[in-house]
Protein backbone atom coordinates (compact mmCIF):
# COMPACT_ATOMS: atom_id res chain seq x y z
CA UNK A 1 0.00 0.00 0.00
CA UNK A 2 2.68 2.35 -0.90
CA UNK A 3 2.21 5.78 -2.27
CA UNK A 4 4.45 5.13 -5.20
CA UNK A 5 3.56 1.65 -6.23
CA UNK A 6 0.59 2.65 -8.33
CA UNK A 7 2.44 4.51 -11.03
CA UNK A 8 -0.14 4.63 -13.78
CA UNK A 9 0.68 3.25 -17.16
CA UNK A 10 1.72 3.74 -19.80
CA UNK A 11 3.77 6.68 -18.61
CA UNK A 12 4.21 8.71 -15.49
CA UNK A 13 1.16 10.68 -14.67
CA UNK A 14 0.82 14.02 -16.32
CA UNK A 15 -2.05 16.44 -16.18
CA UNK A 16 -3.09 17.90 -19.47
CA UNK A 17 -0.42 20.52 -20.15
CA UNK A 18 -1.28 24.00 -21.28
CA UNK A 19 -0.65 25.26 -24.83
CA UNK A 20 -2.42 24.74 -28.11
CA UNK A 21 -0.75 21.42 -28.85
CA UNK A 22 0.32 18.74 -26.46
CA UNK A 23 2.04 15.38 -26.49
CA UNK A 24 -0.08 12.39 -25.42
CA UNK A 25 1.32 10.44 -22.46
CA UNK A 26 -0.12 7.31 -24.04
CA UNK A 27 0.93 7.34 -27.71
CA UNK A 28 3.42 10.26 -27.66
CA UNK A 29 1.68 11.84 -30.65
CA UNK A 30 1.17 15.60 -30.84
CA UNK A 31 -2.50 16.25 -30.34
CA UNK A 32 -4.72 19.33 -30.48
CA UNK A 33 -5.48 20.37 -26.95
CA UNK A 34 -9.03 21.61 -27.49
CA UNK A 35 -9.99 18.30 -29.00
CA UNK A 36 -8.62 16.47 -25.97
CA UNK A 37 -10.56 18.62 -23.55
CA UNK A 38 -13.70 18.31 -25.66
CA UNK A 39 -13.48 14.54 -25.33
CA UNK A 40 -13.29 14.59 -21.53
CA UNK A 41 -9.51 14.65 -21.54
CA UNK A 42 -9.13 11.58 -23.67
CA UNK A 43 -6.55 11.36 -26.47
CA UNK A 44 -8.31 11.42 -29.87
CA UNK A 45 -5.55 9.24 -31.33
CA UNK A 46 -5.12 6.40 -28.81
CA UNK A 47 -7.94 6.93 -26.27
CA UNK A 48 -5.48 7.45 -23.46
CA UNK A 49 -7.49 8.70 -20.48
CA UNK A 50 -5.75 11.63 -18.81
CA UNK A 51 -6.39 12.01 -15.09
CA UNK A 52 -9.05 14.59 -14.33
CA UNK A 53 -9.94 16.50 -11.20
CA UNK A 54 -12.89 15.69 -8.97
CA UNK A 55 -14.66 18.83 -10.19
CA UNK A 56 -14.28 17.77 -13.82
CA UNK A 57 -15.55 14.32 -12.96
CA UNK A 58 -18.63 15.80 -11.31
CA UNK A 59 -19.28 17.93 -14.40
CA UNK A 60 -18.85 14.91 -16.61
CA UNK A 61 -21.17 12.53 -14.74
CA UNK A 62 -23.73 14.46 -12.68
CA UNK A 63 -26.68 16.44 -14.01
CA UNK A 64 -25.65 20.12 -14.24
CA UNK A 65 -25.78 22.09 -11.00
CA UNK A 66 -27.08 19.17 -8.97
CA UNK A 67 -23.98 18.30 -6.95
CA UNK A 68 -24.42 19.40 -3.37
CA UNK A 69 -21.27 18.64 -1.41
CA UNK A 70 -21.63 17.05 2.03
CA UNK A 71 -19.25 16.67 4.96
CA UNK A 72 -17.02 19.37 3.55
CA UNK A 73 -16.00 20.47 7.01
CA UNK A 74 -13.92 17.31 7.47
CA UNK A 75 -10.20 18.09 7.34
CA UNK A 76 -7.22 15.82 7.88
CA UNK A 77 -5.50 15.67 11.25
CA UNK A 78 -2.05 14.27 11.84
CA UNK A 79 -2.69 11.54 14.41
CA UNK A 80 0.78 10.00 14.14
CA UNK A 81 2.67 13.30 14.01
CA UNK A 82 4.17 11.68 10.97
CA UNK A 83 7.55 13.02 9.99
CA UNK A 84 9.98 11.66 7.44
CA UNK A 85 11.90 13.93 5.10
CA UNK A 86 9.08 16.39 5.49
CA UNK A 87 6.22 16.37 7.90
CA UNK A 88 2.79 15.13 6.89
CA UNK A 89 1.47 18.48 8.08
CA UNK A 90 3.67 20.33 5.60
CA UNK A 91 2.65 18.06 2.76
CA UNK A 92 -1.00 18.52 3.66
CA UNK A 93 -0.73 22.29 3.81
CA UNK A 94 1.06 22.44 0.50
CA UNK A 95 -1.37 20.07 -1.24
CA UNK A 96 -4.37 21.88 0.17
CA UNK A 97 -3.08 25.18 -1.15
CA UNK A 98 -2.24 23.72 -4.53
CA UNK A 99 -5.51 21.88 -5.11
CA UNK A 100 -8.00 23.92 -3.12
CA UNK A 101 -9.13 20.65 -1.55
CA UNK A 102 -9.05 19.74 2.13
CA UNK A 103 -8.47 16.06 1.39
CA UNK A 104 -8.57 13.51 -1.39
CA UNK A 105 -12.28 13.02 -2.00
CA UNK A 106 -15.59 14.79 -2.40
CA UNK A 107 -18.96 13.31 -1.48
CA UNK A 108 -22.33 14.88 -2.07
CA UNK A 109 -25.95 14.58 -3.09
CA UNK A 110 -26.51 14.74 -6.82
CA UNK A 111 -28.72 13.65 -9.66
CA UNK A 112 -27.68 11.51 -12.56
CA UNK A 113 -30.25 11.22 -15.34
CA UNK A 114 -32.63 12.79 -12.85
CA UNK A 115 -32.15 9.93 -10.41
CA UNK A 116 -31.19 11.23 -6.96
CA UNK A 117 -27.93 9.60 -5.83
CA UNK A 118 -25.10 10.01 -3.38
CA UNK A 119 -22.06 10.68 -5.51
CA UNK A 120 -18.43 10.54 -4.45
CA UNK A 121 -15.16 10.90 -6.25
CA UNK A 122 -11.54 10.71 -5.18
CA UNK A 123 -9.05 13.23 -6.46
CA UNK A 124 -5.67 11.84 -7.42
CA UNK A 125 -4.06 15.28 -7.27
CA UNK A 126 -4.32 15.07 -3.49
CA UNK A 127 -1.60 12.71 -2.19
CA UNK A 128 -2.42 10.28 -4.99
CA UNK A 129 -6.01 9.98 -3.90
CA UNK A 130 -4.98 7.89 -0.91
CA UNK A 131 -7.41 6.96 1.85
CA UNK A 132 -6.80 8.31 5.32
CA UNK A 133 -9.31 9.11 8.04
CA UNK A 134 -11.10 11.88 6.13
CA UNK A 135 -11.54 9.90 2.93
CA UNK A 136 -12.73 6.84 4.87
CA UNK A 137 -15.09 8.92 6.97
CA UNK A 138 -16.61 10.75 4.01
CA UNK A 139 -17.13 7.52 2.10
CA UNK A 140 -18.65 5.75 5.09
CA UNK A 141 -20.95 8.67 5.87
CA UNK A 142 -21.88 8.94 2.20
CA UNK A 143 -22.83 5.27 2.11
CA UNK A 144 -24.90 5.68 5.27
CA UNK A 145 -26.61 8.70 3.75
CA UNK A 146 -27.41 6.66 0.65
CA UNK A 147 -28.95 3.98 2.84
CA UNK A 148 -30.96 6.42 4.94
CA UNK A 149 -32.27 8.36 1.94
CA UNK A 150 -32.75 5.30 -0.20
CA UNK A 151 -30.46 6.59 -2.93
CA UNK A 152 -27.93 4.65 -4.99
CA UNK A 153 -24.29 5.23 -4.06
CA UNK A 154 -21.91 6.04 -6.90
CA UNK A 155 -18.20 6.34 -6.24
CA UNK A 156 -15.42 7.08 -8.71
CA UNK A 157 -12.15 5.73 -7.30
CA UNK A 158 -8.69 6.72 -8.31
CA UNK A 159 -5.94 6.04 -5.86
CA UNK A 160 -2.44 4.84 -6.51
CA UNK A 161 -1.71 5.04 -2.83
CA UNK A 162 -4.53 2.97 -1.44
CA UNK A 163 -4.36 3.37 2.32
CA UNK A 164 -2.48 6.54 3.26
CA UNK A 165 0.77 5.65 4.97
CA UNK A 166 1.06 8.93 6.85
CA UNK A 167 -1.96 8.04 9.01
CA UNK A 168 -0.76 4.51 9.71
CA UNK A 169 -3.29 2.10 11.17
CA UNK A 170 -6.03 4.71 11.07
CA UNK A 171 -5.84 4.40 7.30
CA UNK A 172 -5.85 0.60 7.27
CA UNK A 173 -8.94 0.59 9.47
CA UNK A 174 -10.81 2.75 6.94
CA UNK A 175 -10.83 -0.34 4.72
CA UNK A 176 -12.91 -2.24 7.28
CA UNK A 177 -15.04 0.81 8.00
CA UNK A 178 -16.02 1.55 4.39
CA UNK A 179 -16.62 -2.16 3.71
CA UNK A 180 -18.84 -2.47 6.79
CA UNK A 181 -20.85 0.52 5.57
CA UNK A 182 -21.26 -1.15 2.17
CA UNK A 183 -22.54 -4.26 3.93
CA UNK A 184 -25.25 -2.20 5.66
CA UNK A 185 -26.24 -0.61 2.36
CA UNK A 186 -26.34 -4.07 0.83
CA UNK A 187 -28.60 -5.41 3.59
CA UNK A 188 -30.94 -2.47 3.04
CA UNK A 189 -31.15 -3.32 -0.65
CA UNK A 190 -29.24 -0.25 -1.80
CA UNK A 191 -27.35 -0.07 -5.07
CA UNK A 192 -23.61 0.67 -5.24
CA UNK A 193 -21.98 1.38 -8.58
CA UNK A 194 -18.19 1.46 -8.30
CA UNK A 195 -16.25 3.21 -11.04
CA UNK A 196 -12.53 2.55 -11.23
CA UNK A 197 -10.07 4.94 -12.83
CA UNK A 198 -6.33 4.88 -13.27
CA UNK A 199 -4.97 3.86 -10.84
CA UNK A 200 -7.04 2.11 -8.15
CA UNK A 201 -4.75 0.01 -5.99
CA UNK A 202 -4.02 -1.28 -2.52
CA UNK A 203 -6.28 -0.36 0.34
CA UNK A 204 -8.86 1.45 -1.77
CA UNK A 205 -9.16 -1.43 -4.22
CA UNK A 206 -9.12 -4.06 -1.46
CA UNK A 207 -12.12 -2.51 0.26
CA UNK A 208 -15.13 -0.45 -0.86
CA UNK A 209 -14.01 -0.05 -4.49
CA UNK A 210 -14.16 -3.83 -5.02
CA UNK A 211 -17.62 -4.13 -3.50
CA UNK A 212 -19.81 -2.54 -6.16
CA UNK A 213 -22.99 -4.31 -7.23
CA UNK A 214 -21.80 -3.17 -10.62
CA UNK A 215 -18.13 -2.38 -11.19
CA UNK A 216 -17.06 -0.37 -14.22
CA UNK A 217 -13.55 0.70 -15.16
CA UNK A 218 -12.16 3.26 -17.55
CA UNK A 219 -9.95 1.68 -20.23
CA UNK A 220 -6.34 0.78 -19.46
CA UNK A 221 -6.54 1.76 -15.81
CA UNK A 222 -4.20 0.08 -13.36
CA UNK A 223 -6.36 -1.94 -10.98
CA UNK A 224 -5.11 -4.37 -8.37
CA UNK A 225 -3.82 -5.11 -4.91
CA UNK A 226 -0.03 -4.96 -4.88
CA UNK A 227 1.85 -2.42 -6.96
CA UNK A 228 3.62 -3.75 -10.06
CA UNK A 229 7.03 -2.76 -8.68
CA UNK A 230 6.43 -4.61 -5.44
CA UNK A 231 5.40 -7.71 -7.37
CA UNK A 232 8.38 -7.42 -9.70
CA UNK A 233 10.77 -7.24 -6.77
CA UNK A 234 9.05 -10.06 -4.89
CA UNK A 235 9.04 -12.58 -7.70
CA UNK A 236 12.09 -11.18 -9.46
CA UNK A 237 10.54 -11.42 -12.90
CA UNK A 238 9.05 -9.20 -15.56
CA UNK A 239 5.30 -8.76 -15.55
CA UNK A 240 3.22 -9.71 -18.59
CA UNK A 241 2.05 -6.79 -20.69
CA UNK A 242 -1.37 -5.48 -19.75
CA UNK A 243 -1.01 -6.99 -16.28
CA UNK A 244 -3.48 -5.45 -13.78
CA UNK A 245 -5.13 -3.36 -16.50
CA UNK A 246 -8.88 -2.82 -16.69
CA UNK A 247 -8.99 -5.28 -19.56
CA UNK A 248 -7.03 -7.84 -17.52
CA UNK A 249 -9.54 -7.48 -14.69
CA UNK A 250 -12.43 -7.85 -17.12
CA UNK A 251 -10.89 -10.96 -18.61
CA UNK A 252 -10.35 -12.53 -15.20
CA UNK A 253 -13.91 -11.87 -14.19
CA UNK A 254 -13.57 -9.16 -11.57
CA UNK A 255 -15.30 -6.23 -13.22
CA UNK A 256 -18.50 -5.94 -15.23
CA UNK A 257 -17.57 -3.49 -17.99
CA UNK A 258 -14.79 -1.40 -19.39
CA UNK A 259 -16.37 1.86 -20.50
CA UNK A 260 -14.84 4.87 -22.25
CA UNK A 261 -15.00 8.12 -20.38
CA UNK A 262 -17.36 9.64 -22.93
CA UNK A 263 -19.84 6.78 -22.56
CA UNK A 264 -19.60 6.67 -18.76
CA UNK A 265 -22.48 9.03 -18.05
CA UNK A 266 -24.87 7.36 -20.47
CA UNK A 267 -23.89 3.94 -19.10
CA UNK A 268 -24.52 5.12 -15.55
CA UNK A 269 -27.90 6.52 -16.54
CA UNK A 270 -28.86 3.19 -18.08
CA UNK A 271 -27.84 1.27 -14.96
CA UNK A 272 -29.61 3.68 -12.62
CA UNK A 273 -32.75 3.66 -14.73
CA UNK A 274 -32.76 -0.12 -14.77
CA UNK A 275 -32.38 -0.60 -11.02
CA UNK A 276 -34.29 2.44 -9.83
CA UNK A 277 -37.39 2.38 -11.98
CA UNK A 278 -40.26 0.02 -11.36
CA UNK A 279 -40.93 -1.04 -14.92
Amino acid at each position, binding site marked *: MSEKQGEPRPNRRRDVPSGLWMRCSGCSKMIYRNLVVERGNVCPECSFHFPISSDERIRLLCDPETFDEQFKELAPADPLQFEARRTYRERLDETQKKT*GLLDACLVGLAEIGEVPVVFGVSDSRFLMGSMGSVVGEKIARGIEMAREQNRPFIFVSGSGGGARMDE*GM*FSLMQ*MAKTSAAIQ*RLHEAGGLFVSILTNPTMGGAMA*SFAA*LGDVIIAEPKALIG*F*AGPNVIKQTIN*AELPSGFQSSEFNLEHGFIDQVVDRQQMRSTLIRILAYFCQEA
Partner: protein
Amino acid sequence: MENESRAHGLDFEAPIVELENRISELRSFSESSEIDLSGQLEELEKKCEEKKKAIYTHLNPWQRVQIARHPQRPLTSDYIKGFVSDFLELHGDGAYRDDPAIVTGLGRIRGRKVMIVGHRKGRTNPEKVACNFGMPHPEGYRKAMKKMRLAEKFNIPIISFINTAGAFPGIEAEERGQAFVVAKNLQGMASLRVPVIAIVIGEGGSGGAIGIGVADRILMLENSYYSVISPEGCAAILWKDASHAPRAAEILKLTSSDLSRFGIVDEVITEPVGGAHREHREMLQRVEETILRHLDEITDIDPDLRKEQRFRKYMDIGRFADQQEQTLEDRG
Protein backbone atom coordinates in the same frame (compact mmCIF):
# COMPACT_ATOMS: atom_id res chain seq x y z
CA MET B 1 14.02 -25.86 21.46
CA GLU B 2 15.86 -23.69 23.93
CA ASN B 3 19.09 -24.30 22.10
CA GLU B 4 17.48 -23.43 18.83
CA SER B 5 16.16 -20.26 20.38
CA ARG B 6 19.68 -19.22 21.24
CA ALA B 7 20.89 -19.92 17.76
CA HIS B 8 18.28 -17.45 16.55
CA GLY B 9 19.19 -14.78 19.09
CA LEU B 10 18.57 -11.23 17.95
CA ASP B 11 21.38 -8.69 18.20
CA PHE B 12 19.97 -6.74 21.06
CA GLU B 13 19.38 -9.98 22.96
CA ALA B 14 23.04 -11.02 22.80
CA PRO B 15 23.79 -10.32 26.48
CA ILE B 16 20.80 -12.46 27.49
CA VAL B 17 21.73 -15.26 25.16
CA GLU B 18 25.30 -15.23 26.46
CA LEU B 19 24.11 -15.59 30.04
CA GLU B 20 21.66 -18.31 29.04
CA ASN B 21 24.51 -20.20 27.39
CA ARG B 22 26.71 -19.94 30.46
CA ILE B 23 23.89 -21.15 32.67
CA SER B 24 23.25 -24.15 30.49
CA GLU B 25 26.97 -25.02 30.31
CA LEU B 26 27.39 -24.69 34.03
CA ARG B 27 24.31 -26.80 34.64
CA SER B 28 25.45 -29.62 32.42
CA PHE B 29 28.93 -29.48 33.94
CA SER B 30 27.41 -29.60 37.41
CA GLU B 31 25.27 -32.56 36.46
CA SER B 32 28.02 -34.54 34.78
CA SER B 33 30.64 -33.85 37.41
CA GLU B 34 28.20 -34.07 40.30
CA ILE B 35 29.64 -30.90 41.80
CA ASP B 36 27.12 -28.66 43.47
CA LEU B 37 27.18 -25.31 41.70
CA SER B 38 23.70 -24.22 42.72
CA GLY B 39 25.03 -21.06 44.32
CA GLN B 40 26.72 -19.86 41.15
CA LEU B 41 23.81 -21.01 39.04
CA GLU B 42 21.35 -19.09 41.12
CA GLU B 43 23.42 -15.98 40.87
CA LEU B 44 23.74 -16.28 37.10
CA GLU B 45 20.03 -16.91 36.72
CA LYS B 46 19.26 -13.86 38.77
CA LYS B 47 21.62 -11.82 36.62
CA CYS B 48 20.00 -13.21 33.50
CA GLU B 49 16.53 -12.28 34.72
CA GLU B 50 17.71 -8.78 35.50
CA LYS B 51 19.28 -8.45 32.09
CA LYS B 52 16.08 -9.64 30.43
CA LYS B 53 14.08 -7.14 32.37
CA ALA B 54 16.49 -4.33 31.58
CA ILE B 55 16.44 -5.08 27.85
CA TYR B 56 12.80 -6.02 27.48
CA THR B 57 11.36 -3.05 29.31
CA HIS B 58 13.10 -0.66 26.94
CA LEU B 59 12.44 -2.12 23.53
CA ASN B 60 12.19 0.22 20.59
CA PRO B 61 9.61 -0.38 17.84
CA TRP B 62 12.09 -1.99 15.46
CA GLN B 63 13.20 -4.45 18.15
CA ARG B 64 9.57 -5.35 18.71
CA VAL B 65 9.14 -5.95 14.97
CA GLN B 66 12.10 -8.32 15.14
CA ILE B 67 10.62 -10.15 18.11
CA ALA B 68 7.29 -10.37 16.27
CA ARG B 69 9.20 -12.16 13.49
CA HIS B 70 11.34 -14.31 15.78
CA PRO B 71 11.59 -17.84 14.35
CA GLN B 72 10.83 -19.37 17.74
CA ARG B 73 7.82 -17.21 18.46
CA PRO B 74 4.62 -19.20 19.07
CA LEU B 75 2.69 -19.64 15.81
CA THR B 76 -1.00 -20.20 15.14
CA SER B 77 -0.31 -23.94 15.11
CA ASP B 78 1.26 -23.71 18.59
CA TYR B 79 -1.82 -22.02 20.00
CA ILE B 80 -4.04 -24.63 18.38
CA LYS B 81 -1.94 -27.48 19.76
CA GLY B 82 -1.69 -25.72 23.10
CA PHE B 83 -5.31 -25.08 24.00
CA VAL B 84 -7.70 -26.06 21.21
CA SER B 85 -8.99 -29.55 21.90
CA ASP B 86 -10.56 -31.88 19.32
CA PHE B 87 -9.19 -29.71 16.56
CA LEU B 88 -10.52 -30.82 13.20
CA GLU B 89 -8.92 -28.99 10.31
CA LEU B 90 -11.28 -28.06 7.51
CA HIS B 91 -9.43 -27.54 4.25
CA GLY B 92 -10.25 -25.74 1.08
CA ASP B 93 -12.04 -22.74 -0.35
CA GLY B 94 -14.54 -24.69 -2.40
CA ALA B 95 -13.46 -22.93 -5.55
CA TYR B 96 -9.84 -23.19 -6.52
CA ARG B 97 -7.36 -24.72 -4.10
CA ASP B 98 -6.50 -25.30 -0.46
CA ASP B 99 -4.15 -22.53 0.65
CA PRO B 100 -1.76 -23.78 3.34
CA ALA B 101 -0.95 -20.16 4.33
CA ILE B 102 -4.25 -20.06 6.19
CA VAL B 103 -5.43 -22.78 8.57
CA THR B 104 -9.10 -23.18 9.47
CA GLY B 105 -10.91 -25.71 11.57
CA LEU B 106 -13.28 -26.72 14.34
CA GLY B 107 -12.30 -27.12 17.93
CA ARG B 108 -13.00 -26.35 21.54
CA ILE B 109 -11.35 -24.10 24.07
CA ARG B 110 -12.06 -25.44 27.56
CA GLY B 111 -15.08 -27.18 26.20
CA ARG B 112 -16.45 -24.22 24.31
CA LYS B 113 -16.96 -24.58 20.58
CA VAL B 114 -14.89 -22.27 18.41
CA MET B 115 -14.04 -21.89 14.74
CA ILE B 116 -10.33 -21.26 14.33
CA VAL B 117 -9.01 -19.14 11.49
CA GLY B 118 -5.37 -18.13 11.28
CA HIS B 119 -2.32 -17.43 9.20
CA ARG B 120 0.08 -20.36 9.04
CA LYS B 121 3.77 -19.61 8.69
CA GLY B 122 5.38 -22.98 9.36
CA ARG B 123 8.33 -23.65 11.66
CA THR B 124 10.77 -25.75 9.64
CA ASN B 125 12.08 -24.66 6.28
CA PRO B 126 10.00 -27.13 4.24
CA GLU B 127 6.92 -26.07 6.21
CA LYS B 128 7.66 -22.40 5.61
CA VAL B 129 7.98 -22.97 1.89
CA ALA B 130 4.79 -25.03 1.80
CA CYS B 131 2.95 -22.23 3.62
CA ASN B 132 4.44 -19.53 1.40
CA PHE B 133 5.85 -18.02 4.61
CA GLY B 134 2.37 -17.23 5.81
CA MET B 135 1.47 -15.02 2.86
CA PRO B 136 -1.91 -16.13 1.56
CA HIS B 137 -3.26 -16.15 -1.98
CA PRO B 138 -6.89 -15.27 -2.71
CA GLU B 139 -8.02 -18.84 -2.07
CA GLY B 140 -6.73 -18.53 1.50
CA TYR B 141 -8.99 -15.58 2.21
CA ARG B 142 -11.88 -17.31 0.46
CA LYS B 143 -11.31 -20.39 2.57
CA ALA B 144 -11.33 -18.32 5.76
CA MET B 145 -14.61 -16.67 4.79
CA LYS B 146 -16.18 -20.00 3.84
CA LYS B 147 -15.42 -21.43 7.27
CA MET B 148 -16.59 -18.26 9.00
CA ARG B 149 -19.92 -18.59 7.17
CA LEU B 150 -20.13 -22.16 8.42
CA ALA B 151 -19.52 -20.89 11.95
CA GLU B 152 -22.24 -18.29 11.42
CA LYS B 153 -24.71 -20.95 10.35
CA PHE B 154 -24.17 -22.98 13.51
CA ASN B 155 -23.69 -20.09 15.90
CA ILE B 156 -20.05 -20.83 16.67
CA PRO B 157 -17.74 -18.01 17.83
CA ILE B 158 -14.73 -17.28 15.62
CA ILE B 159 -11.17 -16.88 16.85
CA SER B 160 -8.78 -15.42 14.30
CA PHE B 161 -5.00 -15.57 14.75
CA ILE B 162 -3.22 -12.91 12.72
CA ASN B 163 0.41 -13.47 11.78
CA THR B 164 1.40 -12.47 8.26
CA ALA B 165 3.85 -10.17 6.57
CA GLY B 166 1.04 -9.53 4.11
CA ALA B 167 -1.15 -11.02 1.42
CA PHE B 168 1.18 -12.39 -1.25
CA PRO B 169 2.13 -9.90 -3.98
CA GLY B 170 2.38 -12.09 -7.06
CA ILE B 171 1.09 -12.51 -10.58
CA GLU B 172 -1.26 -15.38 -9.78
CA ALA B 173 -2.55 -13.63 -6.68
CA GLU B 174 -3.60 -10.68 -8.83
CA GLU B 175 -5.03 -12.95 -11.53
CA ARG B 176 -7.22 -14.53 -8.90
CA GLY B 177 -8.33 -11.21 -7.44
CA GLN B 178 -6.37 -10.57 -4.25
CA ALA B 179 -7.93 -7.14 -3.78
CA PHE B 180 -11.42 -8.47 -4.38
CA VAL B 181 -11.22 -11.35 -1.88
CA VAL B 182 -9.77 -9.17 0.86
CA ALA B 183 -12.59 -6.68 0.28
CA LYS B 184 -15.19 -9.45 0.35
CA ASN B 185 -13.81 -10.67 3.67
CA LEU B 186 -14.00 -7.21 5.18
CA GLN B 187 -17.61 -6.98 4.08
CA GLY B 188 -18.35 -10.57 5.03
CA MET B 189 -16.94 -10.29 8.52
CA ALA B 190 -19.00 -7.14 9.08
CA SER B 191 -22.10 -9.22 8.31
CA LEU B 192 -21.43 -11.91 10.94
CA ARG B 193 -23.77 -12.24 13.90
CA VAL B 194 -21.51 -14.61 15.85
CA PRO B 195 -18.78 -13.34 18.20
CA VAL B 196 -15.44 -12.69 16.50
CA ILE B 197 -12.15 -12.22 18.32
CA ALA B 198 -8.99 -11.37 16.41
CA ILE B 199 -5.55 -11.66 17.97
CA VAL B 200 -2.39 -10.31 16.39
CA ILE B 201 0.16 -12.85 17.60
CA GLY B 202 3.14 -11.73 15.53
CA GLU B 203 3.04 -9.76 12.31
CA GLY B 204 -0.01 -7.76 11.40
CA GLY B 205 0.91 -7.00 7.81
CA SER B 206 -1.55 -4.58 6.27
CA GLY B 207 -4.44 -5.78 4.07
CA GLY B 208 -3.30 -9.36 4.45
CA ALA B 209 -3.84 -9.09 8.18
CA ILE B 210 -7.10 -7.18 8.28
CA GLY B 211 -8.44 -9.60 5.64
CA ILE B 212 -9.21 -11.98 8.53
CA GLY B 213 -9.26 -9.29 11.20
CA VAL B 214 -12.66 -7.58 11.38
CA ALA B 215 -13.75 -8.44 14.91
CA ASP B 216 -15.71 -7.50 18.01
CA ARG B 217 -12.47 -7.51 19.94
CA ILE B 218 -9.01 -6.83 18.52
CA LEU B 219 -6.25 -8.11 20.78
CA MET B 220 -2.52 -7.83 20.34
CA LEU B 221 0.43 -9.54 21.95
CA GLU B 222 2.75 -7.02 23.53
CA ASN B 223 5.56 -7.53 21.03
CA SER B 224 3.48 -8.00 17.92
CA TYR B 225 3.00 -5.25 15.38
CA TYR B 226 0.13 -4.14 13.19
CA SER B 227 0.84 -1.76 10.34
CA VAL B 228 -0.55 -0.25 7.17
CA ILE B 229 2.74 -1.07 5.43
CA SER B 230 5.85 -3.05 6.38
CA PRO B 231 8.68 -0.96 7.85
CA GLU B 232 10.84 -2.05 4.91
CA GLY B 233 8.22 -0.98 2.38
CA CYS B 234 7.74 2.34 4.13
CA ALA B 235 11.49 2.96 4.21
CA ALA B 236 11.77 2.13 0.51
CA ILE B 237 9.19 4.79 -0.29
CA LEU B 238 10.42 7.49 2.07
CA TRP B 239 14.16 7.09 1.82
CA LYS B 240 14.47 4.83 -1.25
CA ASP B 241 16.29 2.41 1.01
CA ALA B 242 14.79 -0.51 2.92
CA SER B 243 17.67 -0.42 5.39
CA HIS B 244 15.98 2.54 7.05
CA ALA B 245 13.31 0.16 8.31
CA PRO B 246 14.12 0.87 11.98
CA ARG B 247 13.28 4.54 11.46
CA ALA B 248 10.14 3.62 9.56
CA ALA B 249 9.08 1.32 12.41
CA GLU B 250 9.43 4.30 14.72
CA ILE B 251 7.23 6.70 12.77
CA LEU B 252 4.54 4.23 11.68
CA LYS B 253 3.31 3.83 15.29
CA LEU B 254 2.79 0.13 14.82
CA THR B 255 3.38 -1.22 18.33
CA SER B 256 0.73 -2.62 20.65
CA SER B 257 1.07 0.30 23.03
CA ASP B 258 0.63 2.87 20.22
CA LEU B 259 -2.44 1.11 18.88
CA SER B 260 -3.89 0.68 22.34
CA ARG B 261 -3.38 4.39 22.95
CA PHE B 262 -5.16 5.13 19.65
CA GLY B 263 -8.11 3.00 20.72
CA ILE B 264 -7.68 0.70 17.73
CA VAL B 265 -6.70 -2.31 19.82
CA ASP B 266 -8.93 -3.39 22.69
CA GLU B 267 -6.37 -5.18 24.82
CA VAL B 268 -2.65 -5.84 24.84
CA ILE B 269 -1.67 -9.27 26.12
CA THR B 270 1.53 -8.90 28.10
CA GLU B 271 4.35 -11.24 27.14
CA PRO B 272 6.63 -13.00 29.60
CA VAL B 273 9.81 -11.02 30.26
CA GLY B 274 12.22 -11.98 27.50
CA GLY B 275 9.44 -12.39 24.92
CA ALA B 276 6.88 -15.02 23.94
CA HIS B 277 9.58 -17.06 22.20
CA ARG B 278 11.27 -17.81 25.54
CA GLU B 279 8.17 -18.98 27.40
CA HIS B 280 5.70 -20.67 25.10
CA ARG B 281 3.71 -22.33 27.85
CA GLU B 282 3.22 -19.13 29.80
CA MET B 283 2.28 -17.20 26.65
CA LEU B 284 -0.23 -19.81 25.52
CA GLN B 285 -1.87 -19.75 28.91
CA ARG B 286 -2.22 -15.98 28.89
CA VAL B 287 -3.70 -15.98 25.40
CA GLU B 288 -6.14 -18.75 26.27
CA GLU B 289 -7.34 -16.93 29.36
CA THR B 290 -7.71 -13.63 27.54
CA ILE B 291 -9.72 -15.26 24.75
CA LEU B 292 -12.05 -16.88 27.27
CA ARG B 293 -12.54 -13.64 29.18
CA HIS B 294 -13.50 -11.76 26.02
CA LEU B 295 -15.73 -14.59 24.84
CA ASP B 296 -17.54 -14.38 28.17
CA GLU B 297 -18.06 -10.69 27.69
CA ILE B 298 -19.48 -10.82 24.19
CA THR B 299 -21.21 -14.19 23.93
CA ASP B 300 -24.41 -13.20 25.69
CA ILE B 301 -24.98 -10.03 23.71
CA ASP B 302 -27.92 -10.22 21.32
CA PRO B 303 -26.46 -11.21 17.90
CA ASP B 304 -27.95 -8.25 16.04
CA LEU B 305 -26.79 -5.84 18.71
CA ARG B 306 -23.32 -7.38 18.62
CA LYS B 307 -23.17 -6.89 14.89
CA GLU B 308 -24.39 -3.31 15.30
CA GLN B 309 -21.72 -2.67 17.95
CA ARG B 310 -19.04 -4.07 15.68
CA PHE B 311 -20.21 -1.73 12.94
CA ARG B 312 -20.12 1.25 15.33
CA LYS B 313 -16.68 0.25 16.54
CA TYR B 314 -15.28 0.56 13.03
CA MET B 315 -17.30 3.65 12.15
CA ASP B 316 -15.69 5.37 15.12
CA ILE B 317 -12.10 4.71 14.02
CA GLY B 318 -10.46 7.73 12.40
CA ARG B 319 -8.95 11.05 13.43
CA PHE B 320 -9.83 14.24 11.62
CA ALA B 321 -10.50 17.89 12.23
CA ASP B 322 -13.89 19.47 11.87
CA GLN B 323 -13.26 22.76 10.11
CA GLN B 324 -16.42 24.72 9.61
CA GLU B 325 -15.77 25.91 6.06
CA GLN B 326 -13.08 28.39 6.86
CA THR B 327 -9.98 27.47 4.94
CA LEU B 328 -10.98 27.42 1.36
CA GLU B 329 -12.70 30.35 -0.17
CA ASP B 330 -11.53 29.41 -3.65
CA ARG B 331 -13.60 26.25 -3.97
CA GLY B 332 -16.46 27.25 -6.25
